């Protein structure tokens, strides 16, 4: 099986968020970056498990500058066979997806994995875009994916429940919680990662229609109003009359 896993880099949730240049640019100073959890814990690990069971290769791909090599190396240490980095700082999800689709179009991957969404922008856009560009079916938010003869059984999250579907490759799938168990890279994996191939590929030109003008910080909460635990009638009154939520 020939598998492609799209991996991205995001600020850690605990990172302090601030902006520079009149709130038009994200301040990267001192920000701790991680591999996007949905990509690392679920998409990548499930792809590696499928390969371990049925043979084949797992390629990871990232669209980003050289500073992303650190997360790519981690993916190789966890067990991917080789890596591709498209050397550009993407300007939008459409840019990211176009770069990945352009690379994947003549590679005959059986499954292209992404994470459910990145935890910084929560776009959940890239996977559907890649599928549309390659005219492939797209299964969103998979929490289970098993080979079933020459096809696959996938369980995906739908509103208020789950749905099991049958599908044949090739297809694009985005990974949600439950698809696999997180793997921590071991020493041997880290050593081997250093010798695994990483191909740096120049980007194609993509027309961009979405730009971030600026960022705003949320209005500070007025501060918490403490309610006497003996007086829940007061809380109910405030929820009804002040917050108007019940």
């Amino acid at each position: 099986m020939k598998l492609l896993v799209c991996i991205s880099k995001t600020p850690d949730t605990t990172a302090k968020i601030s902006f520079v240049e009149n709130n038009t640019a994200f301040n990267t100073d001192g920000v701790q970056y991680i591999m996007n959890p949905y990509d690392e814990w679920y998409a990548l690990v499930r792809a590696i498990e499928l390969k371990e069971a049925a043979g084949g290769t797992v390629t990871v791909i990232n669209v980003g500058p050289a500073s992303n090599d650190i997360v790519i190396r981690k993916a190789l240490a966890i067990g991917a066979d080789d890596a591709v980095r498209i050397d550009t700082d993407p300007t939008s999800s459409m840019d990211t997806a176009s770069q990945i689709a352009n690379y994947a179009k003549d590679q005959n991957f059986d499954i292209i994995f992404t994470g459910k969404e990145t935890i910084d922008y929560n776009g959940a856009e890239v996977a559907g875009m890649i599928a549309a560009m390659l005219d492939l079916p797209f299964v969103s938010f998979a929490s289970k994916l098993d080979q079933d003869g020459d096809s696959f059984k996938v369980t995906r999250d739908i509103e208020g429940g789950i749905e099991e579907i049958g599908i044949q490759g090739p297809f694009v799938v985005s990974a949600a919680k439950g698809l696999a168990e997180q793997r921590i890279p071991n020493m041997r994996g880290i050593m081997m990662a250093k010798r695994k191939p990483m191909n740096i590929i120049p980007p194609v030109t993509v027309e961009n229609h979405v730009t971030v003008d600026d960022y705003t910080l949320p209005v500070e909460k007025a501060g918490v109003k403490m309610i006497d635990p003996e007086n829940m009638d007061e809380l109910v009154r405030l929820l009804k009359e002040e917050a108007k939520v019940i």
Partner: protein
Amino acid sequence: MSVLVFAETQNNKIKKSSFEPIGYGRKLADLMGVECQAIIVGTAENASDAGLYGAQSVIHVNHGASVNFDCINYSKIICSVAKEKGAKVIVFSHSSSGKGLAAYVATKLSAGIVSGVNSLPTVEGQVLKVSKSVFSGKASANFSIDSEIKVITLAGNTIKPDSGGTPATIEQMEIVLDAPKMNVLSTKRQEGTVPLPEAELVVSAGRGMKDPANWNIIEDLAKTIGATTACSRPVADTGWRPHHEHVGQTGVAIRPNLYIAIGISGAIQHLAGVNNSKTIVVINKDPEAPFFKAADYGVLGDLFDVVPRLTEALKKLES
């Protein structure tokens, strides 16, 4: 020219959660001086209700039972309608199916897309300006979309749907589709409760509950106000509660009108999924619990005393 809103259906009805994007689409259409049209795929007995919430017409594509929800065919339907009606903006719900479909459609139409929009947009000539919450709710990003056609998905609980309109006229359309590339083998939905991403009222509990057997007080409270129940991640991980209840960075992200957090410390990864809630009530016995900083109302006390008391107070209100 129009603003086209994709109305999701379930059990042969427009979903309640789809009335909000319809109302939003109408507000946007009025700003742009165009018509607001809803598109419905499949059967919807209440199709004309789209009008009550703001749609000026409904385009109904009844594909029969032959097509499962799959992006290829749904996107083909939406793109054909968008082209025929000269759609300028297409609005989807920011839901499990809406998100993926929106990205697929946007790509096919070379449209710029922003997903998870959470306020009314402004229109400046050809440019649409929208905002969404980013970095786990620690900031908002303000976007410009300048493509000919624009696509957005709308985060739930952004505007209050208003049902003061008139029933819409329904136009039937036929679209020829290919056989779907995936088959639905089975579907499981929790019946009876509003799914978390759509819930307006949420009662959530964490490790402070000590034992899954104690959840009856949470369920009583939730039932009293018709709220959906949620939980913190360790609670779902240890199997105390089902996984679909897990909210936070790695679980479901929600933005209800009311979030009541009981025995949850308020770790940043938990807050990431809930801090867009309009009103947050925190019940915790530790005055240092970080959740109090994110709360509107706080109750410092033992949840086993406070929760039943709150349920009683709410019951008094109901009767």
